[in-house]
């Protein structure tokens, strides 16, 4: 089925070439990092994890997001999602690969990577994180590929696949819980030492992940004949709305606990992030942008008229993604390490090389998404599933404009 990705329009190949160029440039930065060591990054003795690990955390959320399409379909027979499932699974594959790559570029001795598998350490959450992300990657590859192959051959999905699908739904919740456990069991980092961290991670995953997926699907609709069923899209956006509300509610809970208890350990990271401490105000602007954007995106999402406005939706989702990224991609890591165990502040900002290496990984993820989505959309087109109709609906919608199709066919012939 991969051969479907080898035939494409000029625009397709130009996009692939563009991604390859980005990957190439980033690869040069990575080779430099391999030769010089991690001193090319902005990390320090006090802020020993930075941009790479924060992107890993954000992308695990993206990987878990496919479950918001898969779960209604398999647990509740929500058939509208039937032809969307494959895209959730393929996005999860790309996200998992990006997660693993962000770990690889972050470790100081990558040639010893296999030590994690040669010397398994069950008491280390990082060991389990490696296991579950790899496991989820293989589950999605296995399930996605088998289902798509069956679809293409006009066969029903094999029955023995069901247990794997059910496992993958539970597994999706576990990958982000385990990633949260990386942080929430550390006794010295008070911003992370909260039981609600795992719940916050899941909530932000289930709004940011489907938001990114929806944005990519909207782009896919523009460049292929695929069209999301209206109900599937509406439901997904509703899920994003609820998840974002829960996410910000959980954040508000954190704020209450910190400031009502007045405990310095709980308050100081939030004060550093949102007001600045000891003359360090580096993140204040960005953190308030997160709050502002979160408020705007929630307003746009809970108002039905605005939520269903297809012209407005992409902007809403972009604002939501930026908000969640500022919270989870920047605030989480830097607020966790600052104030330091000594009560001081050590500012952190990624270096240019760090960003170039990250760009390489994002471009690789985009490349994987492009190739996999190309395969999936080609199969959908071959099989006539979820295709765009001239009236703007999808073949999966029960719309009344199907008769209009015949008139549209007649009109051009006359003209």
């Amino acid at each position, binding site marked *: 089925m991969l051969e479907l990705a080898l035939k494409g329009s000029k625009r397709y190949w130009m996009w692939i070439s563009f991604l390859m160029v980005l990957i190439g440039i980033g690869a040069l930065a990575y080779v430099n990092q391999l030769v010089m060591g991690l*001193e090319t990054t902005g990390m320090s*003795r006090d802020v020993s994890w930075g941009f790479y690990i924060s992107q890993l955390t954000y992308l695990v959320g993206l990987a878990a997001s496919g479950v918001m399409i898969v779960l209604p379909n398999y647990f509740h027979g929500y058939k509208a999602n039937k032809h969307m499932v494959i895209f959730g699974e393929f996005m999860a594959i790309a996200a998992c690969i990006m997660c693993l790559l962000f770990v690889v570029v972050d*470790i*100081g001795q990558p040639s010893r990577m296999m030590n*994690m598998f040669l010397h398994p350490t069950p008491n*280390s959450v990082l060991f389990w994180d490696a296991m579950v992300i790899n496991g989820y990657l293989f589950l999605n590859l296995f399930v996605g590929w088998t289902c798509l192959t069956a679809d293409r051959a006009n066969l029903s999905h094999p029955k023995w696949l069901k247990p794997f699908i059910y496992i993958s739904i539970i597994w999706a919740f576990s990958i982000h819980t385990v990633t949260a456990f990386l942080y929430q*069991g550390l*006794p010295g980092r008070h911003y992370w030492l909260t039981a609600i961290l795992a719940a916050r991670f899941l909530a932000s995953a289930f709004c940011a992940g489907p938001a990114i997926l929806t944005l990519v699907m909207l782009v896919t609709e523009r460049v292929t004949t695929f069209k999301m069923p209206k109900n599937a899209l509406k439901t997904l956006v509703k899920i994003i709305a609820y998840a974002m509300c829960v996410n910000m509610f959980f954040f508000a809970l954190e704020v209450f606990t910190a400031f009502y208890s007045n405990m310095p350990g709980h308050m100081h990271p939030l004060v550093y992030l949102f007001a600045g401490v000891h003359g360090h105000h580096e993140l204040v602007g960005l953190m308030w942008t997160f709050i502002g954007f979160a408020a705007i995106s929630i307003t746009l999402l809970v108002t039905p008229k605005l939520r269903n406005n297809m012209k407005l939706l992409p902007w809403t989702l972009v604002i939501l993604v930026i908000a969640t990224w500022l919270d989870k991609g920047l605030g989480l890591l830097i607020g966790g390490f600052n104030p330091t165990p000594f009560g001081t502040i050590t500012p952190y900002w990624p270096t240019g090389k760090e960003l170039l290496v990250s760009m390489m990984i994002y471009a690789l993820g985009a490349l994987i998404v492009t190739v996999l989505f190309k395969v999936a959309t080609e199969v959908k087109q071959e099989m006539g599933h979820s295709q765009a109709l001239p009236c703007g609906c999808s073949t999966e919608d029960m719309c009344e404009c199907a008769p209009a199709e015949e008139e549209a066919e007649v009109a051009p012939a006359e003209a």
Partner: protein
Amino acid sequence: MNKNRRTFVKLAGLAAAGLAVAPKAMASSGGHSPVKVNANAVHAKHWAMVIDTTKLHNEEKIAKLSEVCHSIHNVPHIEGPKEVKWLWSDSYGHTFPEQENPHLAEEVHHRFFPLLCNHCEEPPCVRVCPTKATYKRPDGIVAMDYHRCIGCRYCMAGCPYGSRSFNWGEPRKNLDLAKLNPEFPTRMRGVVEKCNFCVERLAVGKQPACVEASEGAIVFGDLRDPDSEVRQVLRERFTIRRKPTAGTEPSVYYII
């Protein structure tokens, strides 16, 4: 035809898996273990350190000890946030941030304290290391195996005391190659390092270098031996430890 090819591929897969497992299975028919502890090593059930900060109380004195420690262990000298340090000094507020009080005695307020790895009894760094590159020895010392460390820095995130340093770049760039201690290795870039309670000196019957150089300000010994010097000092003087609520049970005690 298809069925035969499938069977062949299945068998080939099984054979490959078998080949991968076989050598491991054969190697585990263990060999002899002709090793033992050094005859002149010092032993303890639990090594601990008591620092008298009334004697060891200013930057110069502590810097002298850092100098000794860093030079015999070939610790690189790096300025700035990417520094590597095993033993260093800091103020009361930075050493005991959860035990601050605004009306602290003047003299204590201006005192400097030595900081190092606390070799905790319940070390979070050991709990989180994914490869057991950092591990607790039976004698209580939290050790580093630089050969196994993959440089993930999870231990650095886990340590509530900020005791660990990472080699962001090649440490030999920041060492005076003429003044290296030829009896001890350097580290390579990409691994985490920290105070090791001088295990290599304990193995030949010596005391840790900082203890020796402290002129009695630091006492080092077996916490489980009721007659040891550390236990005597702990009975006589009031001591505190860093971040007592973290559940780590540090083995470094400070006489204030």
